[in-house]
């Protein structure tokens, strides 16, 4: 490997993981902390994996579970591979910089590709290993099984990687076509989000049911038959499972090797023919540029500002996902989560917990949405100083932001309640009481988050200027929101059980009212001064 490739590779690692100094105690501590976290995560994955395989084993479908696992991992790695490949090879901001340096395209490509492969390998090993070891434990596999795991992992890394390289360019062309179809993007992402969450809740429900009583198969005989039939046709992912369990190896190995060869050849051809051309083309095109001629319309100040806020989010895939997509998906996600946890709660404690648990679920999801307001000022980015000089009072500008957050959370919460009522999960009076409390707390959380961001904004002045990285404001907003949700929810459950729904409702409403008032007072206190202090 040439020096340049090694240097570029080190640069990639530095970008992702930061600097590391062997002589620095902090670096050691940080590394130790990461290792502990990773170990914890792997242990957690192993625990979940055991339950997963035991659940399927009880139904006599443990091999099918392995096939399903490889299919899910394959799809996940391919899709994320397409995304990371596109970003790393084509859209990375540093390409602009590297263009100006005496580095060859091939070196850039090799270093980035190596980086992707190593990252993919680390990710795949971290996720797959605990699952495969758990499978071996559940099925009491022999030692030969464990020796075959590396082969399965290697195939699982390289085949999706190579396929994602093949699909990256078509993928990019597709995203370029729909790049300005913001409404369509929101709809597609919402559907994907709802589908993902619904599937996740279905699996979660099965696993919780299985944990409560491992005597049972959680799958009905009909579902078992369907899954067994489907798994027969999951090609090529069933071959990954086959090489592990020595099933049809005379078909599995050739198929996988053939697929590897085909995708490798394809990738080489794509890169040789198209990489440089595509790279140059992307650099010339700004990230989200599109042409749309619109009329200049004169609107009242308030409406103009709301319009601006809306467009700022609507025209950004990142922001749309963080806000509109989650808000759109919230009603159905609340329904999925509530219907399952409500049944769990009624069996575990009794009907009396309905108020508490619905409150808990709705508040948690509401927290996710309101956390977006924790970057209300930070998102101004390069335009922040503009907000100080325009002839609109700061309070009004902030009120506009608040209005939009309020409107979105109001509609999302209202739809949640409508879904809950429609599916008869609770009575009308209780549903609307919960709506009132959730909305009050949503307002409070919004105001808390906005004020936190005003006190300490995190501007992103590089790249497109979007807040794509998590920051402490968002984390603390979510953390606080979860704490409030837990307090309200558990209070509602305990009081609902011990003294009745009416008193529980009053107490929870009291907590919500208290937070609401405190939030307003906190928000309005020294608001203008703190805003003006930003950047001074």
């Amino acid at each position, binding site marked *: 490997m040439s020096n340049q490739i090694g240097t570029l590779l080190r640069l990639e690692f530095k970008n992702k*993981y930061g600097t590391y100094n062997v002589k620095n105690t902090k670096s050691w501590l940080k590394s130790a902390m990461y290792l502990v976290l990773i170990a914890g995560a792997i242990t957690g994955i192993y625990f979940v994996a055991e339950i997963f395989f035991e659940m399927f084993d009880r139904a006599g479908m443990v091999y099918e579970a392995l096939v399903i696992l490889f299919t899910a991992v394959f799809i996940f790695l391919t899709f994320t591979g397409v995304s990371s490949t596109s970003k790393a090879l084509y859209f990375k901001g540093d390409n602009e910089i590297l263009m100006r340096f005496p580095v060859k395209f091939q070196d850039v490509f090799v270093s980035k590709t190596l980086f992707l492969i190593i990252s993919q390998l680390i990710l795949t090993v971290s996720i797959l290993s605990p699952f495969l070891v758990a499978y071996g434990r559940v099925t009491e596999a022999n030692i030969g099984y464990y020796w075959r795991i590396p082969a399965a992992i290697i195939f699982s890394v390289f085949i999706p990687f190579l396929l994602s390289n093949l699909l990256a360019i078509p993928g990019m062309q597709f995203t370029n076509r729909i790049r300005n179809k913001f409404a369509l993007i929101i709809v597609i992402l919402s559907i994907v989000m709802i589908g993902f969450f619904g599937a996740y809740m279905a699996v979660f429900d099965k696993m919780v049911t299985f944990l409560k009583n491992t005597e049972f198969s959680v799958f009905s005989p009909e579902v078992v038959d369907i899954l067994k039939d489907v798994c027969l046709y999951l090609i090529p992912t069933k071959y990954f499972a086959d090489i592990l369990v020595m099933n049809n190896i005379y078909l599995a190995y050739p198929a996988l090797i053939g697929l590897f060869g085909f995708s490798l050849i394809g990738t080489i051809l794509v890169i040789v023919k198209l990489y440089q051309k595509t790279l140059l083309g992307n650099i010339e095109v700004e990230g989200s540029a599109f042409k749309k001629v619109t009329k200049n319309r004169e609107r009242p100040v308030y409406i103009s500002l709301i319009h601006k806020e809306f467009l700022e989010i609507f025209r950004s895939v*990142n922001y749309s996902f963080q806000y509109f997509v989650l808000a759109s998906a919230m009603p159905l*996600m609340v329904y999925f989560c509530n219907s399952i946890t409500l049944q769990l709660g009624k069996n575990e*404690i009794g009907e009396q917990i309905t108020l508490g648990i619905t409150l808990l679920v709705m508040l948690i999801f509401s927290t996710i949405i309101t956390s977006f307001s924790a970057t209300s000022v930070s998102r101004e980015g390069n335009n922040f100083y503009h907000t100080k000089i325009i002839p609109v009072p700061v309070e009004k500008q902030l009120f506009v932001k608040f209005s939009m957050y309020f409107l979105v959370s109001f509609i999302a919460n209202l739809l949640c309640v409508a879904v809950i009522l429609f599916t008869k999960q609770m009575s009308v009076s209780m549903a609307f009481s919960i709506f009132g409390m959730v909305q009050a707390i949503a307002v409070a959380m919004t105001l808390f988050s906005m004020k936190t961001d005003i006190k300490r904004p*995190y501007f992103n002045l590089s790249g497109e200027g979007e807040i794509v990285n998590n920051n402490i404001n*968002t984390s603390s907003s979510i953390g606080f929101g979860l704490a409030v949700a837990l307090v309200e929810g558990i209070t509602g*459950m305990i009081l609902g059980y*011990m003294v009745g729904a009416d008193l529980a409702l009053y107490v929870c409403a009291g907590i919500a009212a208290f937070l609401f008032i405190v939030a307003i007072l906190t928000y309005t206190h020294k608001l203008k001064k703190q805003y003006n202090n930003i950047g001074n």
Partner: protein
Amino acid sequence: MIVIHTENRRKEMKKFLLIVIILIPIIVTVALNATGRLISMITPDNPTGIEIRSSLNQVIEKDDVIRVDIKDTSEFIMVDILPLMTKEDGINEPEKEENNVGDVDLVRQEGTNKYFVIPKKVGIVKIILSAIANVNVRRAVTFNVTSDSIENLTVYNSYESDLQESENYLVNHSQQLYFDIFPIEALSNNMVTWKVSNGTSVEITPNGYLTIREKGLSVIRVMAKDRNADLITKDIIVDTAAAVVKQKVGYVEEGLASNQYVNENFALDPENSSTTLVGEGVYSVTYVDPLTQEELSDTIRIEEVKEDDWDFSDRPEILYTNNGPHFLKAVNLLTRDPQEDVTFTLDDSSMADYENETGALVPVKAGILNITAKYKNTEKSLKVTIREKVSSFELMLGSEDAKLGIQLTRKWGNYWFDEEGELTNKFNFGLYNKANLFDVVWNSSNPDVISIENVEGTQDVVLTFSEDGAGLSSVISADLIVNNRKVPGLRKSFEFKMMDTPDYVNVYNFEEMKELAFDEIYNACLQSDIMATHVLSMNVGISIFGNGFLFDGSQIPSLPLGVGAISIFREAYQWGRYGVQQLEGKTYTDTQSVEKDLTFEELRMSNAVSIEESPNRGSCFTIIAPWKGKIAFKYMQVRNAERGIEVVWAKDVSFEGCILGDNNTYSVFAVYPEFPHGAFGNERAKLAFKNNVIKHSDGPGVAFAYGNSIDAESLAKGFMPDILVDGFLDIYNWHTQESFERMFSKIVVQSLLAYTSATQEAVNIIDKMMVQAFKDYFGSPVLNNIYYWKDNKKYVSVGMMALGAIFRTEAEQIVCNDPRLTVLDVPMEDEKGVPLSSTVNALKTLLKSFMDLDKVTYSSALVCYDFQGGKEPAVKPGDPVPQDYQLYARLTGQSVNLYE
């Protein structure tokens, strides 16, 4: 402060939010579990239901049937006591219904909620499960124990008669015969058929339709093959000697129908028969026995058809599921020869399975099935109603609903409230499953008590209750009907036991109770738990039979001391005094002199969710000033109140079979005026106890108190009624010396507050003073006889108590027939009249000064276990209160086996 992002660490927002979303259900589930554990730690078990799951993890509903093969011992069910946080999650020994045909045993896998089902006998078996933590939480589960062997093959006719092999069956005309296979699941591949095994006098189709060919004896045989490949047969000897015609419907070629033709072709003995046309196509054939000259006649309907006309060989109107196959066949109407090349199609293949090769049609689900037979260009259709022959069914009320309360019984009043709120003696009853998929026939064992009217178009009935049935009972039963025959072993019954008098109304909710409380004419018979939203206040009072249901006063906003969830104030001024909500439109008067006996029986009452919330929650029952008439409390369970039952100035009160305990002060608080008193006609009041149990309370189980003017003359007279303790009185109310002192202080303070008003602060001060005072007093060696020593600690058995001091208690008024108990004097002075402690001395001085009373140091009276002279008390401190079944058995005098 601004932070500008220059590092590019990958902490992407999207990934972060996705991880949070994935964690949401985990957070909610963990919060749920934690809450459940917390609640279960701080509240007592309160099971509300039982959930049963099959081995396929499917929830078993009330009318589901679990199928188990007689040889399969690996089948299991999972039984969960709901809510799942219940600590005591076991079940009592299952009860089996009397009418069970089959039998199973349930064997628990230790440490789990898994119960293996061990089949013992083929047939339907219904068992009732009940929770240990609350025996009134019950669920029934039904098993169908099947076998691969046919145990019984029965032949019967359209008149519900089973045909016996040992008797000749007299056949007068063609008819349909049926078979019943038990268990039907044992039938292999629909292999059942009929044939004539001997003789020529009859013919029989594969579907069992019998036609006569000539006079004489024949043997018909029905054969069924079971899954063990055994062939089961049943032979019936048929005798056609008394038959006149061959069949009831005959087919004749067009133009040939005539008396002579019919006689020659359809009469069994044409030479001795004559035929005449009596209606359109209907001929009467008369046969004269040449030997006896006896005349026999019958009719036959003749249809004229073409030579090649064909039709279904059998045209059944109704078929049943789980009842074997029906064979579809087409025949030439004239020759009765099989019609070849006929295809049969069903309009709804989900309703029945049809096997083309054998022609077997096996009904699968209820409904209307249209079958079309097609031959060349002609079609014939057959409309068949399919009904279900279910393996089991349930009534709206089952045996699990029949045994409630301490006596494990259930009684009914004569009346209900209809939708308009008017009283009616009609009750809609029926099957649990309202889908009307199968047929039943109803019966009342005692129509004079309850008569039955069918509701058209359904399987439901309307029961009409007669007032003459008071004190009697009637069993309402439903039998499954297949082909007009009651299927053996498929009968479900429910016994309606009527209240002893016809003036009870069945109530299901608090609104209905309010209606009765308004008029106070009819009594209440509870058929459901009642959640009271405010005090149920009455002027004269009505009797209540609770059937073991709960009258829950925990949602009543305010229950001050002296007010009961059910309050009967006969003195008009008491309403205002206690500020109890009066029913709108009701006139309240002084009804002290109204003579009316009241009985409160089998009622569970609670004023709070737990005993921790019972302080200041009034009484479950408060009855004030019924001077005439008897008040009886039977098999009551009152708990979680400040005082369980409060009776004030009641002349004749009795308690029988009650569980009194778990209240903040007393479970029974009886208050009397001085004796004699004009209100009682100068007679002494009566208070009787028989076979009761006193569980732990913060005060005495039963307290007697004085309730009238505080003046020397009245106080000196004494107030105690004639108190009789009959049968047994189990006392589990042990207090340590410390808690007894606190209890005593509390009673004194409460007594004082009855006559004075004081702020809460003053009350607290007085309470603290009293506790210290009584510490000295109860430490006196003179009172050593009230203490029982266990593990170096002193305990007091506090069954019943009457407070002395200024109140003259008369221990001799207490007659105790339970030999384990004694009535103790708890003096305040020694034999020489010296106060037992300085505090008593100070109290004596204080009271004499302020209240101008002659004597203020009367002894208190205590009914407790007798442990004098080295005797051991029957119940010792710390002994657990028996599990409910044992307790119930003791209270009712029944054997524990009855409950188990």
